[in-house]
């Protein structure tokens, strides 16, 4: 990338405060370009972020701001165009095969759509047992692990293991997905719009599950959402993305309650007001 902005990449990003906790996962100058019908679209543009251990970082932005692309790159499900991803000080940008699977034992994800995340032809039981490939537990402890992980999300094996995805409600499905991710005993959990397709009560339910996981297991959660309210409810730190760039980052307190970036202010002013009037 020989753009002039590469010399001063952080120019337009407002960094409110940094953290002194240990950085678990980070990305440096990560860029993703797609070529669509001959023209280039930059979905993620020179993003650098750090995820401190045992905290919740929310990435907020409107649709198309590159949040999900960033998540997929951090998960190594999609190659980066340029930049590096570092996990525990190790460059993981170009891992392959066994090393990549090893990475996935530490970094797991829950996706947006609780229906399309499932293979509709298999039961929850076979979905979870598939995860045993990475979980590295002896065979006789497999059932105990499945029970434990379902327990974290308040589900009992007897109730769900034999069920097909279409036989469960959206909330149950999403909780099964969280349980699946937990089977590898990950250190980082990416939740990519994991609550967007759930209705309000279920959403709080899943948010609480994520919150408890952070507290109980010391999980680092990367929570990607377009909903500032949810970010505020859950996150310790917030990064705001606009058109592929991080425009403002800092603690939740700083970014949401005293925003400095224009875009952050605009985003905040679009949050529906409980007192009900449409803003002028």
């Amino acid at each position, binding site marked *: 990338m020989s753009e002039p902005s590469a010399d001063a990449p952080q120019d337009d990003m407002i960094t409110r405060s940094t953290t002194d906790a240990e950085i678990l996962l980070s990305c440096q100058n990560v860029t993703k370009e797609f070529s669509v019908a001959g023209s280039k679209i930059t979905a993620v543009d020179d993003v650098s972020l750090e995820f401190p251990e045992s905290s919740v970082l929310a990435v907020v932005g409107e649709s198309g701001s590159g949040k999900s692309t960033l998540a997929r790159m951090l998960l190594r499900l999609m190659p980066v165009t340029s930049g590096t991803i570092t996990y525990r000080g190790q460059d993981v940008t170009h891992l392959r095969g066994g090393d990549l699977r090893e990475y996935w034992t530490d970094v797991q994800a829950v996706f947006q759509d609780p229906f399309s*995340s499932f293979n509709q032809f*298999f039961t929850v039981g076979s979905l979870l047992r598939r995860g045993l490939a990475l979980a590295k537990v002896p065979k006789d402890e497999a059932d105990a692990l499945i029970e434990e992980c379902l327990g974290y999300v308040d589900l009992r094996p007897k109730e769900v293991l034999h069920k097909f995805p279409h036989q469960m*409600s959206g909330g149950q499905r999403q909780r099964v*997905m969280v349980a699946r991710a937990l089977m590898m005993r990950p250190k980082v959990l990416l939740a990519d719009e994991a609550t967007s397709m759930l209705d309000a009560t*279920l959403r709080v339910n899943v948010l609480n599950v994520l919150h408890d996981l952070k507290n109980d297991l010391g999980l680092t959660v990367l929570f990607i959402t377009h909903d500032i309210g949810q970010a505020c409810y859950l996150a310790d730190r917030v990064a705001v993305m606009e058109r592929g760039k991080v425009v403002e980052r800092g603690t939740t307190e700083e970014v949401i309650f005293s925003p400095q970036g224009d875009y952050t202010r605009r985003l905040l002013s679009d949050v529906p007001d409980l007192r009900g009037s449409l803003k002028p």
Partner: protein
Amino acid sequence: MSTVNTSMAEETAAPRANTLRSFNFSGRFWIALVLVAFVILLGLAGLVYPTTAGEKVGSLYDAPGNGLLLGTDNFGHDVVAVLMAGTRTSLIIGLVAGTVATTIGVGVGLLAGYVGGWFEELLMGVTNVVLAIPSIVVLILISMSLPESTIWSLAIVIGITSWPWTARAVRAQASSVATREHIDVARLSGARLPGILLKDVLPYILSYAVMAFVLQVAGAILAEAALSMLGLGPSGANSLGTQLHWALAFQAVASGAWWAFLPPTIILTLVSFGFLLLQASLDEVFNPRLRRGKRKQMKQAAARRVEEARLLAQQAASEPAAGPPEPSDRARAGEKA
């Protein structure tokens, strides 16, 4: 089945409606099934028919009659017995060749569609080259170069020349499935390539593969008939194609012995028509948009929904105490907010 937004209150899904009705088999399907079943039964009937195909029961082209339903062929064999044996052979060749072609085609298509990139270009390049070579020429060359032509070698030769279009069709489907989220989930669960292809991609294109298989069987039966008619058929075995070959060689048409060439022609027409119709009606089963008589079905479905809604309303009325779903979670949210 949009269950995406069902509420937590509905923890257990309603039992599925009658499976047979949900398949919506059309009249075409049943006609196709009867045709195919008839041909299969004809093939199997040869196993219990009193005379065998190799038994001499008359002289050259005896006309039907005298206890022989379709007379005799040029060797003096009973045409009915030969027809039954030939049908059986043709069906076996069709099934084996169809299996071989579908396996190769689905395998190549799955790999190309899922893996993508240069690998896809390579596989599809090979596929297009094979597609461009007229397969009948390759078939003739390979069958001539084989030391001995059996029904199995013939079936395999037909199979390995007819897979390319299946591969192309499957590739398109597989590359669409490959972008779905459940594939990411499977990868994150540590699934490897073969597991993903077999468990996460193949089931989603299985309806397509089944239809391709049916078409391949029909195509293989016709290809066998064409080869056998040219004299490249299985040696020492009867098939519908060899029957036509001998009828041609011994001037059945010129001598007016219609019973020697019409029956195999009719069976060939029936079997390929039956399979094509089966394929088309399976398409309707798998793709609801193509269903015929849809208006009637929609009316029935609407009536069913009204009935279900009425039952639900009755249930709700009988349990007035059912509060909002998961009250404990609400309380919990209240605490934290």
